[in-house]
């Protein structure tokens, strides 16, 4: 990317391949004419150190990526008010400035143009001193950031209200605040040939297995893509079973969730610019766990968890079972009910399967329409959906009333397990088609197929159903039930290979 250039007498010297030249004029020339040519956001602030030996310097920074007051106050002012001793030569100048003059907290030295290019985009100031082949980099990050707010996608009644924002540094600090142990480690990587997005791998040194960390790092390093704009890119590029619709990498907007997962021996990946952290390995049970389960009383938490499992069954299976019953096995429905259902369906001209698919589609259209619309218009959608399509469709005998109940119940139950909601639509549709073909047994074949799919999946070497297919009581403690904290003595077997002990001594309780 850099080339030798022909020069005539009096012009800047030819540029060494990538090395910063001692001549300030040469440096400025190459920066302005080659590396940052046509880039008008890069600011060059020339100044001189004070008498008796004034020396030409330049402060370079990317506009709006730095705190301007900070640069003026702690970089420019001290530099302009002090002088550099005459006897200093070459690199000594930079070191003298960093050690004796500059008042910023971070300062490092770089010797290559390409490093200047990389660093400036991170929001720093770069000082070039005439006669010195080393540039001083001072931290001054100061771009616009969103405040730490409650994440809209995962709100809680009980629990911390902090959510991740788009800033990687802030996000890591939010996790670190919860795990202030020296064992909490962070590894940084850069992904994306154009975006050079910073990606951080978070784990606990004494709990997480190193093979897992290495594997995550290896997969991320293997990514070769031009840009990473959200953690979703990384998620899709490194996950197992990419053709399965079930997620094999978890995502969350909450630092407390990340801390909890890391404590169980998982690895978390944070991506600069994305408020969604990734956690891996991800097992199916995690879709049914919520952070509030662990903050509330264990009995109510267990109840809520059961409700989630039931809801998932309801949202995926109800239409299929309904179709199977009314089309193939009416003898299985209680007599009174079968009479009222057939009375309701008497005037409807379509078979059940058409009704289910049409109404399901209507529901999905309303939902998709509501998601991306501005709030005030969104309400109009729900009015149209509820009154026009629901009530009017029944009175016009386009669909039967029981079908509205089935579709409504299905739709509402889907929101109880948000991480599997999109997927539930696909499961529901395939089960409905099978039930329409072979009745209850078609439905069963569909369930068998999905269970086979789930049994065959793995996430980072851990079977996807791990905690569900075990018979070891300790491993079952956090699946369908959430046992009290004082009984969760060990960490999950499949994740925390190094240190399984979670509670010490009197099983964590003091009042017994």
């Amino acid at each position, binding site marked *: 990317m850099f080339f030798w250039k022909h020069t005539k007498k009096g012009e800047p010297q030819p540029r060494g391949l990538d090395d910063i030249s001692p001549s300030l004029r040469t440096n400025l020339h190459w920066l302005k004419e080659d590396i940052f040519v046509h880039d008008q956001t890069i600011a060059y602030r020339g100044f001189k150190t004070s008498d008796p030996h004034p020396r030409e310097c330049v402060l370079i920074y990317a506009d709006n990526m730095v705190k301007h007051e900070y640069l003026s106050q702690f970089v420019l002012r001290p530099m302009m008010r002090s002088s550099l001793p005459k006897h200093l030569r070459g690199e000594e100048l930079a070191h003298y400035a960093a050690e004796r003059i500059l008042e910023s907290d971070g300062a490092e030295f770089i010797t290559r143009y390409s490093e200047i290019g990389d660093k400036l985009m991170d929001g720093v100031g770069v000082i070039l001193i005439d006669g010195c082949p080393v540039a001083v980099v001072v931290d001054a990050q100061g771009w616009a950031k969103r405040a730490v707010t409650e994440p809209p996608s995962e709100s809680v009644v009980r629990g911390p209200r902090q959510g991740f924002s788009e800033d990687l540094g802030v996000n890591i600090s939010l996790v670190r605040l919860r795990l202030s142990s020296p064992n909490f480690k962070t590894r940084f990587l850069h992904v994306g040939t154009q975006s050079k997005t910073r990606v951080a791998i978070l784990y606990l040194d004494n709990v997480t297995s190193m093979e897992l960390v290495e594997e995550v790092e290896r997969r991320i390093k293997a990514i070769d893509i031009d840009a990473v704009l959200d953690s979703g890119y990384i998620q899709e590029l490194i996950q197992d079973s990419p053709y399965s619709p079930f997620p094999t990498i978890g995502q969350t907007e909450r630092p407390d969730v990340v801390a909890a997962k890391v404590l169980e021996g998982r690895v978390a990946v944070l991506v600069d610019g994305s408020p969604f952290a990734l956690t891996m390995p991800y097992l199916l049970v995690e879709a049914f766990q919520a952070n509030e389960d662990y903050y509330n009383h264990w009995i109510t938490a267990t109840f809520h968890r059961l409700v989630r499992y039931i809801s998932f069954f309801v949202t995926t299976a109800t239409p299929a079972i309904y179709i199977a019953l009314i089309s*193939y*096995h009416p*003898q*299985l429905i*209680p007599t009174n009910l079968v009479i009222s259902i057939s009375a309701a369906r008497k005037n409807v001209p379509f078979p059940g399967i058409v009704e289910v698919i049409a109404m399901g589609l209507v529901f999905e259209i309303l939902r998709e329409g509501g998601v991306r619309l501005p709030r005030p218009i969104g309400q109009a959608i729900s009015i149209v959906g509820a009154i026009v399509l629901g009530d009017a469709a029944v009175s016009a005998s386009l669909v039967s009333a029981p079908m509205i109940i089935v579709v409504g119940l299905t739709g509402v139950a889907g929101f109880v397990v948000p991480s599997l909601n999109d997927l539930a639509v696909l499961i529901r549709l395939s089960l409905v088609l099978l039930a329409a073909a*072979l*009745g*209850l*047994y*078609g439905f*069963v*074949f569909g*369930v*068998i*197929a999905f*269970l*086979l799919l*789930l*049994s*065959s999946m793995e996430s980072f070497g851990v*079977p996807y*159903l791990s905690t*569900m*297919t*075990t*018979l*070891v009581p300790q491993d079952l403690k956090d699946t369908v039930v959430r046992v009290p904290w004082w009984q969760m003595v060990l960490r999950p077997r499949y994740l925390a290979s190094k240190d399984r002990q979670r509670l010490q001594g009197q099983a964590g309780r003091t009042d017994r």
Partner: protein
Amino acid sequence: MKELVPDHQGMILVLMFIVGNTLVFPLGGLAGPDIWLAFLTATVLALPIILAMARVRSLMQGSTFFVGFERVLGKWPSRILAFLYGGFAWRLACYVVSDVSNFIQTVALPTTPPVVIATFLALLMLWAAKEGVEVLARFAVMVGKVVLAVLAIIFVLLLSQVDLGEFQPVLYNGFKPVLRGAFQILDFPFLETVVLFWVFDCFGRRVSPYKVFLPGFLAASLVLLIMVSTSLAVVGADRYALYYYPVWTAVGRINVSTFLTRLEAIVGVTFAIGSFVKMAVALLAASRCFAYAFGFSDYRFVVTPLAMGVIAGSRWFITTVLEVDQSAVETHSPDEIMFQVVIPLVVWAFAELKAKNGKANGSSQAGGGEEV
């Protein structure tokens, strides 16, 4: 590729394999009211064979299945045996598929041709067999929990209808019917377990085969004993053997305050899921055996043709529910005695001899080696 199944998952796989497609049939109907005695007798008689299988697998510990098997019997005998058992397992898969497809046709979908159902089943088991025994074992645990829970609930609900008088008088016709019933149960389903011998590639520890086969078999025997005796006590000893599906009929009688009724559909669903485990295991065993018999290291490419064959085979061996009933009630045919009793015992004897020789020579050739 080494496939290792954790002990508890293997155990559930054995349990589901035996319980799977047996649930609804009139097992041991020949024993009449002494059915529970027939079950106990069959359990005792089957134990030596189950233990012999576990022992042989335990002696092979440290090598994958076919490598160990070749060490015991030599190359050609083991290939011939594998071929024969491949056929046996494939036929078993056909039987199970036709059991299920005929059952579904009889109780639920009278106008749907069974071959349609068999095709669905064959596609599913093809997939399962390709995924391998590890995935199958996980699947078995997932469905096993549901199946066992359903059976437990049904048992409790049936209790109010149980008439213990149906079991009396004990041994009214002497011990002969008990033995005939016991042999019936041995043949189907207890000793069909020999198919499982070929399915597990390797085990975690030396005691693992015992931990897989023994508790799995005993638990299955207990579950079947409870379900079968309960349904016999509900429908009556004289009618038990006459019904095609006595458990189905018994469960149909459950009526809790006119709300919990018509539960037989749940039995049907449970039966279909349980049978699926069995047919997938049988197809997997058949594929592994045939692939080995013809000298291929990976079995996966044989699965598809064999599964397609099962669709035809399920209509070939058995065409109607009448024949299903006959095959379940019929006692030993000579080939079954061969496959289920004689050959396993002979293999065991060879394995013991080999292990003894290996020890005497001071080598761990027969996979005997050091005791763990």
